């Protein structure tokens, strides 16, 4: 098994993309998950549905509309151009934006479930012990909902690594910029270079298997979640 320079570049790019997306998703997904877990608002259903849309939509639909929005004529495109940033499609950051939206449900849902399972009581207890809202989040929610956050991070990362359709729509196939592993495999197959395709594909299978194995192991270890002590 050996990787060409282009393969290594694709691997490195994939790693960079998945890490950036995971980081952004944890920052962005946590408040959304928090709100969804605790609100009684009428908006809960619609917002939860929008977040979950990528689960059922063909990636091409999401990619198509993002391309329109972020393109030179799109609302977002005009905005980024006015900031002097150019347009996002066919750039690394364009991929990040698209992947964040596409992987959102995989991050929001585990965190939301963990916060819902936590319930209101530990937060009330902390409040009676003089912990303010931020203090409560870091001293109670984060440690008690940690399995949910780890699951969210792993799923967000792995799902971004496995992306193909959205990447192709938004990023195209620019080496070092948008050509991630899944696209690289596609290229190898198109060129009938099955040997190279095998190498990368087997690596992806091994990676995915290990991620899921680790995740299920984690969930079994956390089989007795908090709040069930009485």
């Amino acid at each position, binding site marked *: 098994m050996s990787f060409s320079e282009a393969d290594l570049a694709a691997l490195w790019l994939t790693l960079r993309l998945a890490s950036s997306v995971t980081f952004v998703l944890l920052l962005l997904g946590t408040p959304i998950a928090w709100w969804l877990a605790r609100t009684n608002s009428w908006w809960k259903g619609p917002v939860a549905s929008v977040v979950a849309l990528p689960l059922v939509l063909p990636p091409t639909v999401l990619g198509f509309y993002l391309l329109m929005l972020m393109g030179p004529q799109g609302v977002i495109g005009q905005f980024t151009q006015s900031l002097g940033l150019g347009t996002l499609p066919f750039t690394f950051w364009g991929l990040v934006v698209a992947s964040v939206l596409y992987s959102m449900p995989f991050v929001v849902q585990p965190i939301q479930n963990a916060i819902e399972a936590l319930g209101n009581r530990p937060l009330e207890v902390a*409040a009676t012990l003089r912990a303010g809202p931020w203090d409560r989040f870091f001293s109670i929610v984060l440690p008690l909902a940690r399995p949910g956050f780890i699951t969210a991070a792993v799923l967000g990362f792995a799902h971004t690594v496995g992306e193909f359709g959205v990447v192709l729509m938004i990023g195209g196939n620019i080496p070092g910029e948008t050509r991630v592993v899944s696209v690289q495999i596609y290229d190898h197959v198109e060129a009938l270079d099955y040997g190279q395709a095998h190498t990368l594909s087997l690596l992806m299978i091994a990676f995915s298997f290990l991620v899921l194995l680790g995740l299920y192991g984690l969930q079994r270890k956390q089989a007795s979640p908090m709040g069930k002590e*009485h």
Partner: protein
Amino acid sequence: MATTIHQNAVEQDTAPQKIQARFILKRSDTPRNTFELDVNLTLPGGGVTALFGASGSGKTTLLRCIAGLEKPSQGFLSINGQSWQSATHCLPTHRRPLGYVFQEASLFPHLTAKGNLAYAIKRTHAPLPADLYDKVVSVMGIETILNQRPSQLSGGERQRVAIARALLIQPGVLLMDEPLAALDTARKQEILPYLEQLPALFDIPIIYVSHSLDEVARLADHMVVLEQGKVAAQGSLTEVFSRIDLPSRFGDQTGVVLKGIVTERDAHWHLSRLSFASGDLWVSDSGDEVGQPLRIRILARDVSIALSHHEDSSITNRILAEITEIAPDLDEAMVLIRLKVGTDYLIARLTKRSVAHLQLAIGQKVWAQVKSVALVR
């Protein structure tokens, strides 16, 4: 009302400290099932105040309003001169100097017992007095379990750690929401002695929610009876217990609480004489020394009435009393009779036929015969 533990009465009468609470809160879980809390209370700023009522009477909701965990539509709360809530401001829970003990153990499962205590200490505003930690830990008897996780502790142990944690925040008022309700009888008996010590050892007003008259009789100095979100009665413990217009609240448990002192022990007959402001009662010797203050409870069904003082009866305790009130009982055949003995009261539960037969009337002097006395503590 004056009681024989004069110290208590004096403290309550002269202390300028008090807790004032006014709340209106409406809640509708379903359109048909609405609940409204509407209370206006002035409570003593010291000692133990019990909020008593059936489930759904609003006692926990009232406690949560005091803690700031519920948002009443109208609220006014002042604790010993400090305003916590008014028309113009409302302190969030984490800014209210209170301790709260929840019904079920509420320890943080990711921290050890010691870690749970440290969580409170880290967040107190006042510096921790040198001996407070050791005092709290030893009073609650948790020295040996400090390094355990909540999941390794029994229900009673968890609740003791939770009480210790609430004390270490150095609260201005300690709120307890049925801290024994989730425990079985044996565990309750395990915790009660710890609770009893609190008022004497820590100078903190305690508001204690309970639906158990036994607990209230044992722990409280002052009592508020809630019914359907409204205050049905409030006053000193002895006064509220001696009311006979609340049979639906107390039912079978209707009866008075008296506070007395052991003044004599009869080793031969194994009896102790308890003295009250208004008389003496002989009870089974509990092992308490002369001079020990005790609380007893006399149920209405254990008190009968005789018109004359006769010696040919097995009843040891006979007290001359005056009938001050006659009220219907829940049972159609029975009535409740309130008897004044000096400054104390007794309640007798008699059949209507006996009342007619003896021609009992308000103002009449009779002999109250006490068949049985329960030592509360």
